């Protein structure tokens, strides 16, 4: 009698990896097939230039989608882009897309937006696929049960030329978020808490799968927020197994499969989950049921605390390099150990980005600011939708009227002040409550000071002119 050999239990990551393996060398160096490739204007010019110099073609133009997002002004764009270098970069992408036969959403196309908002919106992002982009927040797409990660420009060129990527397999890490989130805590608080727990290098060399009741309960928008900031925890990618919510989000999107192909895809997607006994190299558990609203105080996304907490004292850190770095962060931020963020005045509130620039985020903000006014001490408060379609949806629901009446600026879609490559930037010393993902020195403008929070916390902060504990308001 032949023995039935049980297949080794596999994680979601293992399964997607196995299904995309083109070649594996003895030392584990692997060639991984790439199903989907997103391109934006900042990290692609040198890749296309490389192709031209070596006389290479794009192997599968239809598997790449190009969109401008980083450089575009968020004011009226009908008259073009004033800033010359930005304009050249945008024009370069337009030309490259045309020359190499790649579909391209230009700055006046209503489908234009931040690349990580656009991919899912178009149904370009699908479960079980491998997705790359020359942008670290490509991890966002993992929310759909895809293996998605950022790559460098040389790798962009490699993917364009070969539709593959040279990789070594990462370790499997599981982060389980247990319980039901309290009323005022959000996906953003989940991921900030996780980064605070594991540190910005905590996920290095790993792919994280997020599981647990609090993750399952999240909308697709919320799941994207969590996966988006996986990179801030150092992991190569983050992913969440697909379920009915995933399918409901994708059904009938322009690039999603239709009819019989949709049914075939569904059958395949239903197998996309970690097997019960699959091995994870590391397991981290976060108590979702007792998660407070979180705010960052320093210049690294691991510098986070509960809104009610006091800023920690760097002198309690044993390691000299770390201690000095945290002092440097406090000095940069103009803060002191023991201070509470609720006591510090803000100058700017910025709502948007691939972390929190989707429709659900805007609806949550609208609920809080409806019928109220932003505080007088703010220089301004700005809302930048993640894409033209998000903007259109928000306007059809009348959200923009709520924002404008409350004193917010309502802008055209793009990356905007998440990194300030366009004119939206903090001035030196300005302190900003931001729904983006990085509080690095200078990220939002030279010597600007960024505090990362959820859209709800940012909205409440805009009304008060300082951070508040939204559980009390």
């Amino acid at each position, binding site marked *: 009698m032949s023995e039935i050999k049980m297949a080794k239990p596999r994680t979601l990551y293992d399964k997607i990896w196995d299904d995309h393996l*083109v*070649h594996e*060398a003895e*030392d584990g*160096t692997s*060639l991984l*097939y790439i*199903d989907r490739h997103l391109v934006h204007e*900042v*990290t692609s*010019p*040198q890749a296309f*230039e490389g192709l031209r110099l*070596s006389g290479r073609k794009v192997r599968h133009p239809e598997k790449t989608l190009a969109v401008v997002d*980083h450089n575009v002004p968020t004011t009226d764009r009908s008259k073009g882009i004033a800033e010359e*270098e930005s304009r*050249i*970069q945008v024009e*370069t992408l337009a030309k490259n897309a045309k020359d190499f036969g790649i579909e391209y959403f230009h700055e006046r196309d209503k489908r234009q937006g931040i690349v990580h908002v656009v991919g899912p919106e178009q149904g370009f992002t*699908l479960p079980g*696929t491998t997705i790359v982009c020359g*942008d*670290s927040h490509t991890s966002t797409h993992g929310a759909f049960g895809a293996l998605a*990660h*950022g*790559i*460098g*420009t*040389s*790798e962009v*060129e*490699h993917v364009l*030329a*070969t*539709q593959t990527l*040279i990789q*070594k397999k990462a370790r499997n890490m599981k982060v389980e978020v247990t319980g039901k989130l309290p009323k005022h805590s959000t996906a953003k608080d989940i991921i900030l808490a996780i980064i605070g727990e594991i540190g*910005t*290098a905590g996920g*290095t060399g790993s792919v994280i799968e997020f599981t647990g009741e609090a993750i399952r309960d999240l909308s697709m928008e919320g799941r994207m927020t969590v996966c988006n900031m996986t990179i801030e925890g*150092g992991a*190569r990618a983050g992913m969440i197994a697909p379920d009915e919510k995933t399918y409901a989000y994708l059904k009938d999107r322009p690039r999603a*499969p239709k009819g019989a*192909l949709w049914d*075939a895809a569904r059958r*395949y997607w239903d197998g996309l989950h970690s097997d019960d006994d699959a091995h994870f190299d590391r397991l981290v558990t976060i108590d979702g049921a007792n998660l407070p609203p979180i705010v960052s105080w320093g210049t690294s996304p691991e510098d986070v605390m509960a809104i009610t907490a006091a800023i920690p004292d760097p002198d309690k850190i044993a390691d000299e*390099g*770390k201690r000095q*770095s945290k002092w*440097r962060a406090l000095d940069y931020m103009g803060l002191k150990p023991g201070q509470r963020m609720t006591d510090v005045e803000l100058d700017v509130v910025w709502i948007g980005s691939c972390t929190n620039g989707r429709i659900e985020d805007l609806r949550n903000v609208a609920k809080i600011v409806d019928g109220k006014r932003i505080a007088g001490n703010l220089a301004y408060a700005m809302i930048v939708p993640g894409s033209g379609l998000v903007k259109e949806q928000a306007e059809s629901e009348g959200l923009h009227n709520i924002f404008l009446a409350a004193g917010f600026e309502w802008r055209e879609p793009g990356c905007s002040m998440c*990194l*300030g*490559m366009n004119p939206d930037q903090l001035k030196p010393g300005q302190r900003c409550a931001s729904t983006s993902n*990085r509080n*690095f*020195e*200078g*990220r939002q403008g*030279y*010597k600007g000071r960024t505090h990362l929070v959820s859209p709800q916390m940012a909205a409440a902060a805009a009304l008060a002119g300082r951070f508040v504990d939204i559980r009390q308001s």
Partner: protein
Amino acid sequence: MQKFDVLNGVAAPLNIVNIDTDMIIPKQFLKTIRRTGLGKSLFFEMRYTQEGKELPDFVLNKPAYRKAQVLVAGDNFGCGSSREHAPWALLDFGIRCVISTSFADIFYNNCFKNGILPIVVSPDDLKKLMDDAERGSNATLTIDLPAQEIRGPDGGKVKFDIDPFRKHCLLNGLDDIGLTLEKAASIDAFETKNAASHSWL
């Protein structure tokens, strides 16, 4: 790509943890459509005033380190944005090797595509190398890739690990795309198989 074999050069100490790619090369320099010319803007915010005047205290502005070829840095070097402008800026300045206790994944990958060798060492070894680097132009490090060894000014040696494939590519200055295209038949076969099993893609 430039080959990397044995390098003997001045090592600059940068004892800060979590140096992100925004610090290595801030956004205003990402508008270029070329790979070269970024060296003068490397570490811009730490290196210059907003008006572009050199800050004399920053390590790469000190006479001893202006020609540094090695950087010794704190944990988690290169975290954050995937911008390959970071290794391009390092290379354009003249840095061919970065030593730390850990690197962010994407940055680490990007280095190899540009002939830069990132070396992971233990916290104890980093401390030692940081002390060596503090001695400025009197203290050069030898980075011997074939022997996988760092040799300090006092004869101290630190062994390091490196993936054999990456080592091979660096030693020979090989272009990844060329290597992958040699496997075109495997890619074709994969695509044929996939068209059947993943018709919905």
